[in-house]
């Protein structure tokens, strides 16, 4: 989230698209209710189903799964055409006036530079025109046809209300009502917030869905303000934290990158990360990259990382592919190229697409290690459970180790909520039986491996033998020791660069913030964005002062928010160019004539002059991007792409399948149903229920009793067409697998018409398996295709094709 749960009360309009907060985030959704009750805010829901959120909305419109970009570009077109634009914001805080290279363009739904063989773009033309002074050329009058604003206008021109209806199935009148409601938020004193979740991310173009809304929010001037923002609701309790800390193939904590093979040495690695400002006076804060990176290397390898050896740069692995993400690893497993696999609190047998492929992948491992508080389907993938896990046990040669871990109640440490708050929690129960903390397990494994290398030698033991491990008990590091390491400390005296006689931190002291990070080896810190979370003053994440001066919703003294305890990102943009709040009644910060101050930690240098320094300090432009240059693989503007399995062809280019640059493994391509395949005529989409949390709560007898049984949801029309009884048993199948379920026949899903064709939707909730207290069932992953988003490889769970028929009732056991 750019903002926070408690900030939602400040909004005038909530758009829930790609999520269902009332169902999946009930206590956070309370803040929407608060805004409606106290501010008269309105709620719009756009969703294939009339969801629980829709039931309390002011306006609802249906949309075909996987067509959100067309809808969003349609809204942008309408706002541009009807002058619903926050002009001062757009002109000064976005790259609308920046000029783009003449070679850039698009046709047939594709941008310039497409290579069909490689399924990739040559992105050279997707960039700005640079002047002789090294800065981007701009035209603040927006007259130049090559400025971003005019290119955007041309790009969205095709997304007329008629086109939106044709592609999305959303009736034009409903679409236009929503445009008008959204358009009202272009005034500086009205804000809209976007609340989204997996309904936008789980698509082969998920990242572009979100960019589409982010662009709309910029055009309305709603980023950086109270009650505005792009608010990813997020799923699990620490999904934010695990991403912050970089537990991904290609990440280093704090959104730094693991090098690729092309970056053979430290200088080459840094050369593409200089982040030279693209406009005069801009902060371009990523220029501090070397400080964050060197401090990370010092946190990892201490005295072994020196300036002479490039901070032990060769200890880091170098990637030959963009990432060894989970789906690539499962593909490699099916080819017998992976021997050992660890699942720490994760149930991939039910969480990743094409379950049949998952079973095949795990069957080819030598050893699978599970660490979990619960016994999971993944740890039993080899065990036969009839139709629910129909495997040949004896033939599966994988050894499995199942290790019992603690759960939250027995554990101490911080979790990061959607609003980036790091909240500390304490243990209040003894672990059951022999269950152990994950930290103990990881330390026990690692110290044993280190001992083997010490005793036996082996291949390149250096990064293991030299890893910093100075915990009081090396076999059981404590949460406070680890949290302090992430915050960072001074290794030598750290001086103020503005006044070299002034000491900021003595050697051994915790750093107060990332501004104290250095690139000369005098500081260490595991995760720069967490700097300030555990300082000399103690554990900032454990703060429990819930006062909120003037009830802005900021709660600055409650826990700690990254970065720098800032509660609303880009909050400099809540003021006009002169530094005065757009909306005085919703002041966040302001320029006093000398410095920035207010209710939140300013997202700008405290004394940066408002007329000189732009508000988007992380970008070398100093402004936000309506045109994202070559930063995303599938285009500098979002463009309509169909799901890989779709009922209709792409209206711009019938030859185009799915996202034209998404990675597709050959074996998976064979499992996709053809466009309009009569054997798989219905669109399926997955969703969650309020009584359950993923595959965990089915282990809880209370939740299992509340929602005991797997079902699928269909419209009355589809039920009639297929002769399906209300509550009857049905079989649902895709080109990859089949499931049996109860049919829930509702008015919440209605057929729609897209490109002249009736489209039925089958809703498939995600909560059942073959372990725990609930009845045995299936997950949507038995049916969904193994293909991910082109930028981030999040699987396409929200739009794929299935068939459905009545099935014989299950024999009563």
């Amino acid at each position, binding site marked *: 989230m750019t903002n926070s749960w408690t900030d939602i009360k400040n909004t005038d309009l909530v758009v829930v698209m790609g999520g269902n907060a009332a169902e999946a985030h009930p206590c956070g959704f309370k803040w929407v209710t608060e805004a409606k009750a106290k501010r008269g805010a309105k709620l719009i829901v756009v969703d294939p189903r009339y969801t629980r959120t829709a039931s309390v909305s002011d306006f609802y419109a249906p949309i075909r799964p996987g067509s959100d970009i067309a809808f969003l570009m349609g809204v942008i077109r309408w706002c541009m055409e009807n002058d619903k634009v926050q002009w001062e914001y757009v002109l000064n805080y976005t790259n609308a006036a920046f000029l783009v290279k003449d070679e850039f363009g698009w046709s047939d739904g594709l941008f310039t530079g497409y290579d069909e063989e490689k399924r990739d773009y040559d992105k050279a033309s997707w960039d700005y025109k640079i002047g002789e002074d090294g800065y981007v050329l701009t035209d603040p009058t927006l007259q130049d046809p090559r400025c971003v604003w005019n290119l955007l206008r041309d790009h969205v021109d095709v997304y007329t209300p008629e086109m939106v209806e044709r592609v999305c199935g959303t009736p034009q009148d409903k679409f236009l009502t929503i445009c008008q409601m959204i358009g009202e938020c272009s005034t500086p004193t009205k804000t809209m917030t976007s609340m989204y979740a997996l309904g936008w991310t789980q698509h082969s173009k998920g990242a572009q869905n979100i960019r589409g809304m982010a662009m709309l929010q910029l055009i309305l001037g709603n980023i950086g303000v109270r009650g505005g923002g792009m608010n990813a609701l997020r799923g699990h309790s620490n999904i934010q934290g695990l991403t912050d800390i970089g537990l991904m193939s290609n990440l280093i904590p704090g959104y730094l990158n693991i090098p690729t093979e092309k970056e*053979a040495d430290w200088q080459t690695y840094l050369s593409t990360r200089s982040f030279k400002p693209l406009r005069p006076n801009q902060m371009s804060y990523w220029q501090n990259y070397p400080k964050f990176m060197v401090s990370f290397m010092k946190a990892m390898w201490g005295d072994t990382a020196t300036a002479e050896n490039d901070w032990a740069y060769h200890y880091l692995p*170098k990637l030959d592919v963009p990432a*060894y993400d989970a789906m690539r690893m499962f593909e490699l497993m099916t080819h017998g190229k992976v021997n050992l696999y660890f699942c720490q609190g994760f149930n991939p047998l039910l969480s990743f697409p094409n379950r049949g492929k998952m079973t095949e992948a795990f069957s080819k491992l030598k050893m699978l290690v599970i660490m979990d508080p619960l016994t999971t389907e993944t740890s039993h993938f080899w065990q036969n459970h009839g139709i629910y896990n129909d495997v040949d046990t004896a033939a599966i040669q994988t050894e499995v180790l199942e290790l019992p871990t603690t759960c939250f109640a027995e554990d101490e*440490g911080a979790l990061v909520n959607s609003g980036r708050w790091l909240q500390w929690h304490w243990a209040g129960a003894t672990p059951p039986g022999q269950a152990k903390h994950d930290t103990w397990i*990881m330390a026990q494994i690692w110290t044993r491996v280190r001992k083997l290398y010490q005793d036996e030698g082996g291949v390149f033991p250096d990064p293991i033998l030299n890893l910093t491990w100075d915990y009081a008990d090396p076999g059981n590091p404590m949460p406070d020791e680890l949290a302090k390491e992430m915050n960072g400390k001074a290794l030598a005296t750290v001086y103020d660069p503005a006044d070299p006689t002034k000491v900021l931190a003595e050697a051994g002291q915790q750093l107060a913030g990332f501004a104290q990070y250095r690139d000369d080896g005098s500081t260490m810190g595991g995760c720069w964005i967490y700097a300030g979370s555990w300082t000399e003053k103690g554990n900032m994440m454990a703060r429990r002062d819930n006062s909120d001066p003037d009830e802005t919703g900021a709660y600055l003294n409650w826990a700690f928010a990254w970065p720098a305890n800032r509660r609303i990102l880009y909050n400099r943009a809540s003021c006009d160019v002169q530094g005065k709040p757009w909306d005085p009644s919703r002041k966040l910060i302001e320029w006093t004539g000398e410095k920035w101050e207010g209710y939140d930690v300013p997202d700008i240098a405290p004394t940066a002059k408002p007329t000189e320094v732009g508000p988007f300090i992380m970008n070398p432009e100093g402004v936000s991007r309506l045109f994202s240059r070559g930063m995303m693989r599938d285009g500098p503007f979002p463009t309509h792409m169909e799901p890989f399995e779709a009922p209709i062809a792409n209206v711009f280019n019938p030859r185009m399948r799915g996202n034209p640059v998404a990675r597709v493994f050959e074996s998976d391509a064979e499992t996709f149903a053809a466009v309009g395949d009569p054997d798989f005529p219905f669109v399926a989409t997955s969703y969650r229920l309020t009584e359950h949390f993923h595959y965990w709560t089915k282990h809880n007898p209370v939740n299992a009793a509340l929602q005991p049984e797997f079902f699928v949801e269909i419209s009355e029309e589809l039920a009639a067409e297929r002769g399906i009884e209300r509550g009857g048993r049905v079989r649902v199948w895709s080109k990859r697998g089949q499931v049996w379920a109860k049919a829930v026949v509702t008015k919440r899903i209605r057929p729609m018409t897209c490109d002249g064709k009736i489209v039925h939707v089958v809703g498939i909730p995600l909560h059942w398996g073959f372990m725990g207290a609930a009845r045995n069932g299936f997950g949507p992953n038995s049916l969904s295709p193994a293909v991910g988003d082109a930028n981030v490889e999040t699987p396409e769970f929200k739009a794929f094709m299935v068939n459905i028929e009545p099935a014989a009732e299950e024999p009563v056991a």
Partner: protein
Amino acid sequence: MNIDLSRRGFLRLAGAGVAATSLGAMGFGGAEAAEQAHVRAFKLATTTETRNTCPYCSVACGIIMYSKGDVKAGETAELIHIEGDADHPTNRGTLCPKGAALKDFVHAPTRLTTPRYRAAGASEFQEITWEEALDKIARALKDDRDANFIQANEAGVPVNRWTTTGFLAASATTNETAWLTYKTVRSMGIVGFDNQARV
């Protein structure tokens, strides 16, 4: 503000206060002490109270856990009740159907309590000691790393990566677990590294 005054302390005070004022108001005066002596204490007043957050969705509602026994004092502690934390700015004491049933998640019948091992081709798990399990894992890691670690690519560039072992990290573990996991996995050169944020 309610930083220092614990919920348990608050209940005790409130309980005593109600008893004292109502009796006093009704003019029983001297009966107060006798009355208080036999009023049963609130059940939760004998418990240890711990602040935590709901481990499910990332609204991260504040919760208060009540246990018999104090973990901090080194005692065995049994969780007997969980409720929403009224001091928490986000949820202000509310919980959804998931958070409201959290205690029964902690006590779920299918929680793991002992390390188990499934041999190749076997149809059941068997119990194994922690020592055996950890030694087995460390041995497997070392052997696979030594056999398959790639030190340089074809062009001779040092790449120091290990692709035949992978690690899928969780989404509800603490930051501190995540950091220790990061150090462990990265120092070995594992690149098949991912977490639940992917899905």
